[in-house]
């Protein structure tokens, strides 16, 4: 329970100047890290060290540092969000590492997520998929009372399970096929489970899948890697529902 000090760590980090440049790994040494520190705090310390040596710090995405905004996105030691389950990179703590370890840090590798700089990738593809139909088409105002349509608790709970997606991209980053199916399924499934979303379920499933394919994500082969690396533990049962919704929609065409 009490925090220990990791005397020395070797960090092997992907550095890339910008989207067009060719990147490569750089190795850094860092000392005296508390096991109570988060992984990103360790990187903050590295960056402080780099600034003091007048070198450019490592660029990485991060924001809320509470595991909910979905900004942080590092591939650490061969796993999306590192060697812990059900966490985002910002919730990964240094107690997961041994003193003297070498830690490899890479950006998400996925053709649809090009690297912008160092460890930062562009996840605009996820935005585009949602823009294609990941919503309920209602305008502000003129809606019925919140309790006008009762929703069975199991359905509401399951919708919430899917809605927990933070759009971090770990699913596509970890999938051996770079498939975005879990991300798409989470939204399609959430809205298909609720009466409000059911109305345009067919259109939504078709539009989002078409956009996903267009953007160059791979195909799902049901390995389940996405759900085990998903920081919000979203289940691939939602992918089954997406498949169902898609098939239903296509059969009507």
């Amino acid at each position: 329970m009490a925090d220990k000090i990791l005397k020395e760590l070797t960090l092997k980090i992907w550095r890339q100047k910008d989207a067009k440049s060719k990147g490569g790994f750089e190795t850094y040494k860092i000392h005296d890290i508390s096991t109570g520190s988060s992984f990103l705090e360790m990187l903050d310390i590295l960056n402080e060290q780099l600034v003091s040596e007048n070198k450019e710090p490592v660029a990485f995405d991060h924001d809320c540092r509470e595991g909910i905004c979905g900004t942080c996105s590092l591939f650490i030691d061969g796993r999306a969000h590192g060697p812990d389950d059900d966490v985002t990179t910002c919730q990964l703590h240094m107690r997961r590492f041994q003193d003297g370890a070498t830690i490899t840090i890479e950006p998400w590798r996925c053709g649809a997520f090009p690297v912008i700089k160092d460890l930062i990738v562009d996840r605009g593809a996820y935005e585009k998929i949602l823009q294609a139909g990941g919503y309920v088409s209602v305008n502000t105002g003129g809606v019925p009372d919140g309790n006008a349509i009762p929703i069975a608790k199991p359905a509401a709970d399951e919708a919430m399970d899917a809605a927990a997606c933070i759009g971090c991209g770990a699913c596509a980053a970890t999938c051996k096929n770079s498939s975005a199916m879990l991300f798409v399924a989470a939204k399609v499934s959430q809205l298909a489970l609720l009466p409000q979303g059911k109305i345009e379920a067919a259109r939504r499933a078709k539009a989002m899948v078409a956009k996903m394919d267009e953007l160059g994500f791979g195909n799902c082969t049901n390995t389940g890697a996405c759900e085990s690396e998903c920081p919000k533990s979203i289940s691939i049962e939602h992918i089954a529902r997406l498949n169902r919704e898609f098939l239903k929609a296509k059969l009507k065409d």
Partner: protein
Amino acid sequence: MSNFLTSSIGKKIILSLSGLFLIAFLCVHLALNLLLIVDNSGELFNIGAHFMATNPIIKIVEPILAIGFIIHIILASILTLQNRGARPIKYDLRRQSGNCTWASRNMYILGGLVLIFLFVHLWNFWWKIKFAGDPLLAEINVDGTAMENTYALVSGLFKSSIIYCFLYILGGIFLGLHLTHGFWSAFQSIGLCNQIWRKRLECLAKIFAFIIAAGFCIIPLYFMLGLAN
């Protein structure tokens, strides 16, 4: 159904349906093959083989089966190529053992190995029965019906070559591994899966894959160990 086949899910659904069709074929095939060890005289197997060779419905199904194979192979190849292309720059270090099974990651390789086995298998039996012929196939008479002695061809192969026995055992294992993932994955892809059924299907897949693999492995083992006299 416009653009169904160009969509990722559409391709997956067809791949799954063809897979399920092939699974149904495997069941029939295994049931027939097990006659090899049920009846030492080979009579039952020969009757079965003769039925399969002459029944008109089977004759219709045969080319469909071939098409099933071809669709399964072509779609799997397209999907795999697309999937490879979706990650132009690979990771330097990957640790996937904890998050998915080896078989699920290597379905295409397993499928390829099964395919190689299939060619050998076709050359061993199907080719000889249908086209090339073999002295062992000399016509016999069972209950008044003239038929080829397919039993002799099969038992002859396994009795004469330990290498073939091992090859067929390996083929069975590859096929079993392919099915540990393929069986439940097919249901998942066509959407016939949920929280409760997933556990059942995954369990069923393991049992089914084991039965298929064990069933096909038993036959060469049976001849290899000299249990067929």
